[in-house]
């Protein structure tokens, strides 16, 4: 094969991979080799995430991004994440970042509004901030944030439709020792504990109190705060809690 034929074959191969039709000189071929690499990289990214996220149709995300291998460089989803099952989804992962910002930067939405199971959603995760964690009002929320010891902010937490979270467990925020900011949406109807969160802001504390269900006609539930938070509650706040037939513990 002549040198000319070999060069034509290389140009054909570049055009085949990059999809171009233009005649390629030597300089363009040098650039083309780089384009082949980038095209291959994109194709591999697409192949991986198309498969992992079922072309955006995946709804069962149980343990999908669980484990220390998942960090911000690797967790670069192609499609929105809209799970029905999110059991352990981000558990034990190495996302030591603002997850809400990370997904915003990628143009990805984490939508839990149809989610039935958030059990251990961020269990032992290194995440620092999460966005809206608004789920089905019947969702299992036990240990959702438990042991996420670096978690500082939960933008919003509660039932997506403004209804009542009925399967919140006392361990949902267990060991959230860095938690400062949380805004509650909807109603908290069952025992809830922030026992290990001494840094909650005044606004966060008030948000929790304001969203406690009025239980005056039903069984009392308990609201537990860290001793440091409880010591700073005002008489008005304490009265607001017990007036709704909640027992305050700190």
């Amino acid at each position: 094969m002549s040198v000319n034929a070999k060069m034509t074959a290389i140009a054909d191969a570049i055009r085949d991979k990059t999809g171009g039709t233009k005649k390629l000189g030597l300089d363009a071929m040098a650039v083309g080799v780089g384009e082949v690499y980038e095209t291959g990289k994109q194709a591999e990214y697409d192949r991986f995430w198309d498969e992992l996220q079922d072309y955006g149709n995946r709804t069962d995300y149980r343990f999908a991004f669980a484990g220390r291998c998942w960090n911000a460089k690797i967790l670069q989803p192609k499609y929105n994440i809209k799970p029905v099952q999110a059991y352990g989804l981000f558990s034990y992962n190495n996302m030591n970042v603002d997850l809400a910002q990370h997904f915003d930067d990628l143009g990805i939405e984490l939508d839990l509004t149809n989610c039935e199971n958030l059990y251990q959603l961020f269990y032992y995760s290194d995440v620092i901030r999460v966005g809206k964690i608004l789920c089905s009002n019947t969702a299992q929320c036990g240990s959702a944030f438990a042991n996420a010891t670096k978690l500082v902010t939960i933008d919003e937490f509660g039932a997506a439709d403004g209804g009542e979270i009925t399967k919140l467990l006392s361990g949902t925020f267990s060991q959230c020792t860095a938690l400062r900011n949380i805004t509650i949406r909807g109603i908290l109807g069952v025992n809830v504990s922030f026992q290990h969160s001494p840094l909650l802001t005044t606004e966060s504390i008030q948000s929790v109190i304001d969203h406690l269900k009025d239980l005056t006609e039903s069984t009392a539930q308990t609201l537990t705060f860290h001793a440091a938070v409880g010591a700073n509650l005002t008489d008005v706040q304490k009265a607001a809690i017990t007036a709704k037939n909640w027992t305050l513990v700190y």
Partner: protein
Amino acid sequence: MKMKTVEQRILTADEGKYLTNGETAGKTVVLPADADYSAWTEITEEAYIKMLEVQLERE
């Protein structure tokens, strides 16, 4: 103007002790006035730490 009187029962644990209902625990428990406070018992700090460990394992 609205005025509402809210009565409460406040339980305070003795020095070195905690109050628990088996589910949660703390040094102070503020109950609605007509709530049943018999469910709350005092435990030692050692028992409290053990309770936290059990909770951690359960989660």
